[in-house]
């Protein structure tokens, strides 16, 4: 299959991307619902009680996937912003704009659920350690991106200003990820890594990965629905 046969640039046009986005959004939305049901079943009914944290640990089935999504969405948002800035493609800027609210939502969920996990396990709702503080900065970056775009009347200038902020802010993502290694934090280190075996039971890991996949599908569905709105609004 050659690059020519896939017609990547054909779909860069908002008009041709609009119907495709609708179809992908519907399939991803359905997949998200099924995966979420499966993930919740595994997380709440199949996974065993944790020996140290008791039932409170079940918050990880939404906390960890939400935290992953908060970082991943920001990187994807910065990627589309950079593409939009480099090639001046409207659809790229729309993708970046459409990702921001969902990224902010998952960042807030990560902070909220982390707080509800921290209280019974650490004895406090909040602590200004590197992981929590850098995640909070990520939330402010999302808010800043959306506020900046909304504050500038000229759409092209708003998109370029937002893109610059998104690209500069991406430096915060590795800081969040490596904060538990670089600094002495109350937040525990990564339980799941690509380079070593996971430090949790297989059913716990399965539930968490299924929920992560559900959040991933959900993010694609709502982002594409939002892009469709932006295409119609900017027509």
């Amino acid at each position: 299959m050659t690059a020519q046969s896939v017609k990547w640039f054909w779909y860069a046009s908002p008009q041709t991307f609009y119907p495709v986005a609708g179809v992908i959004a519907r399939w991803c939305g359905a997949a998200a619902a099924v995966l979420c049901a499966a993930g919740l079943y595994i997380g709440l009914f199949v996974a065993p009680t944790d020996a140290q944290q008791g039932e409170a640990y079940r918050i990880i089935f939404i906390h960890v996937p939400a935290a992953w999504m908060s970082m991943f969405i920001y990187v994807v948002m910065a990627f589309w912003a950079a593409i939009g800035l480099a090639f001046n493609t409207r659809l790229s800027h729309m993708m970046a704009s459409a990702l921001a609210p969902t990224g902010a939502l998952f960042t807030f969920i990560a902070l909220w659920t982390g707080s509800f996990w921290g209280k019974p396990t650490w004895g406090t709702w909040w602590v200004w350690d590197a992981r929590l503080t850098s995640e909070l900065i990520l939330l402010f970056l999302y808010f800043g991106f959306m506020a900046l775009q909304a504050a500038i009347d000229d759409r092209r200038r708003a998109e370029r200003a937002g893109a610059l902020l998104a690209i500069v802010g991406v430096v915060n993502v590795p800081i969040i990820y490596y904060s538990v290694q670089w600094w002495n934090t109350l937040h525990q280190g990564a339980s799941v890594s690509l380079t070593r075996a996971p430090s949790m039971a297989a059913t716990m890991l399965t539930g968490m990965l299924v929920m992560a996949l559900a959040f991933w599908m959900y993010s694609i569905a709502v982002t594409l629905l939002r892009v469709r709105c932006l295409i119609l609004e900017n027509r």
Partner: protein
Amino acid sequence: MGGYGLYVWGAYGVTFLLIGVEIALLVNRSRKCSETKT
């Protein structure tokens, strides 16, 4: 939930409430866009 119900359901409840709000806002926005542009 072994005495942790407030924390577990507080986390899950707010998560799915917010996701529900996002979906409702998005469906409403899509409907308005479609009505305006057709």
